[in-house]
């Protein structure tokens, strides 16, 4: 019985720990956007052609955060 209770508790602790990954992804997305802005302000004429690269970078950084969100969801509802 205690094992079941510990497993139920650990599920939520694990989901909470997985949420740290979302914060880490937020740092990554912020780094991408901030560096893009820093570069764009130095050379505004080149910024327009690089927005596609910006979004690709954002998407890659964000995907890993979404993975951690998925792990949290799996722990909460699937395990």
């Amino acid at each position: 019985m205690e094992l079941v209770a510990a497993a139920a508790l650990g599920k939520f602790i694990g989901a909470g720990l997985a949420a740290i990954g979302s914060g880490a992804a937020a740092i990554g997305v912020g780094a991408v956007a901030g560096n893009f802005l820093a570069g764009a302000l130095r050379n505004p004429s080149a910024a327009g052609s690089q927005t596609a690269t910006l979004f690709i970078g954002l998407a890659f950084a964000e995907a890993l955060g979404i993975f951690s969100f998925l792990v949290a969801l799996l722990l909460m509802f699937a395990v």
Partner: protein
Amino acid sequence: MATEAHSEGGLAFHPLDQFKIHPLFGEGPIQWYTPTNVTLWMALAVICIIALFVIGTRGRAVIPTRVQSVAELAYGFIYRMVEDVTGHDGVKYFPYIFTVFLFILFSNFLGLIPGSFTPTSHIAVTAILGFGVFIAVTVLGFVLNGAHFLGLFWMKDAPLVLRPIIAVIELISYFVRPVSHSIRLAGNIMAGHAVMKVFAAFAPMILISTIGVVVTPVSVLAITAIYGLEVLVAFIQAYVFTILTCVYLKDALHPGH
């Protein structure tokens, strides 16, 4: 103070219940042919696309009407993106990319209507789109380039000692592509809708607790702000899905670069 003790019972909410699939007519098991809320909203997205692009541009006016100019704007936007990212060879595959973009965009936007359902919030739907792109691009790469397509994994510029290690890493990252491609879209949409539902559950707290005087206005404002963000996310995720499709297509067309 006494009312706060009861507030726990009143706050029972299920933010993920909005993603439940149920048959449109009656109850019972869901077969592959059963019309469900997913098929309904997917069909509505397709109908909206047809309405915009077939009926909206029927006039073919030189000076476009409002509806026609929206259609032309979307067409030109994606056409330029395909041309920029994949080059002139990629324009051949523009119809497929444009179809994928429109389907995701309209599913996302229709899902923002309160009480509606978002097909793209389900990994099953986005996985079909993601794996469709993956398989199409892989087959295309081998058909067009033959064995040269494997040069994508065998870096000519890297030192010889590192090449096998890089090849393994590249191979893994290549096969993770469809997974991340589809989960990114579904995860973003699902997370956004769940957040809105969580704040929506806090909104009626004024009815059950004195602390609600503070919580309710804050959460109503938060829903408004997050809804605006979600409109942006709905477009950006469709854009990101499409541009990554273009990037993968470029790898298939020119594996050397």
